[in-house]
């Protein structure tokens, strides 16, 4: 039964991915990316990774879709027409990379294999000691926030940097007829205008 659900979800994802390739309407593509994320989130739920599914649904299907729509309002709703020149080179590179990647998956351990390296390294210690050392029922939280606190700090800094980058690039409103230099000190900060 689980296999059937997995298969249906993966087929939906493949269909959506094909939609990305063939659809030229960017609004439809933003919606498709939301559907892709939501399907992926469902897949994570099936794999019992509820925390990851939660993040995927909130970020991928929620925020990213909204940001995509808002970005479309700044650019345009249709992609450029496909170029007419030959795409055989990029096609070959893509096919080669894809073949190598698919070939590499045959060496991966099966899903849920207890002998897999990921389950042999530090995971057993986390699972056995988390209750005594951290005392938090959700082991995912204890790993993210405590055992792997450095990594999470790095992620937060990445999010912080992303927001800073957006502010630096788009945070000041451009007004027609004004050079970017003049608006410094002229009270033209985007945020001061209501």
């Amino acid at each position, binding site marked *: 039964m689980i296999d059937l659900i997995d298969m249906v979800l993966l087929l939906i994802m493949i269909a959506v991915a094909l939609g990305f390739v063939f659809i030229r309407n960017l609004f439809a593509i933003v919606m498709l990316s939301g559907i892709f994320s939501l399907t992926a989130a469902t897949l994570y739920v099936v794999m019992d990774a509820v925390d990851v599914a939660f993040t995927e649904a909130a970020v991928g299907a929620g925020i990213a879709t909204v940001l995509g729509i808002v970005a479309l309002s700044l650019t345009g709703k249709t992609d450029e027409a496909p170029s007419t020149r030959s795409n055989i080179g990029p096609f070959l590179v893509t096919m080669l990379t894809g073949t190598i990647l698919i070939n590499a998956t045959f060496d991966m351990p099966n899903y849920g294999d207890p002998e897999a390296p990921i389950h042999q390294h530090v995971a057993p210690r986390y699972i056995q000691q988390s209750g005594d050392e951290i005392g938090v029922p*959700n082991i995912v939280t204890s790993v993210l926030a405590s055992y792997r606190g450095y990594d999470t700090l790095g992620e937060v800094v990445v999010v*912080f940097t992303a927001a800073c980058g957006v502010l630096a690039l788009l945070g000041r409103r451009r007004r027609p007829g004004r050079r970017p230099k003049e608006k410094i000190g002229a009270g033209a900060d985007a*945020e001061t205008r209501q």
Partner: protein
Amino acid sequence: MIGKSILRVTPKVLIPAIMLFGLYVQFHGDYGPGGGFQAGVIFAAAVIVYGLLFGTHKARRVIPPGIVRFFLAFGVLLYAGTGVAGMLLGGNFLDYDVLAHDPVHGQHIGILVIEFGVGATVAAAMITIFLTFAGHDRPLEDK
């Protein structure tokens, strides 16, 4: 949105529920799925829904950009500051054991504080990105 009563009434029902759920995910992440990252995104979603329906100008009035930027930096500083606090109390960076007399209690405090830092930064970042993108009235032009 004037005259579109469904769009005006629905958020009044939805937004408080979204915010409450965000707080639940924030502070219940130790016990169930969720944590600061998801909570921040959910909390930001409430503001984004408001901004989408009533316009970014009104959203800016509800949550002034200065406050958003404060929390953007505050979250990262709170997280890193918790690590430094652990060092000052004689432990390693981001070692929560020393934050309380009992190591497990210290871990609880540390996780609660840093999850709040994560939530604050993520929510502020999402709100900032949305308001900055949506605040442009006219399309960008290629230079």
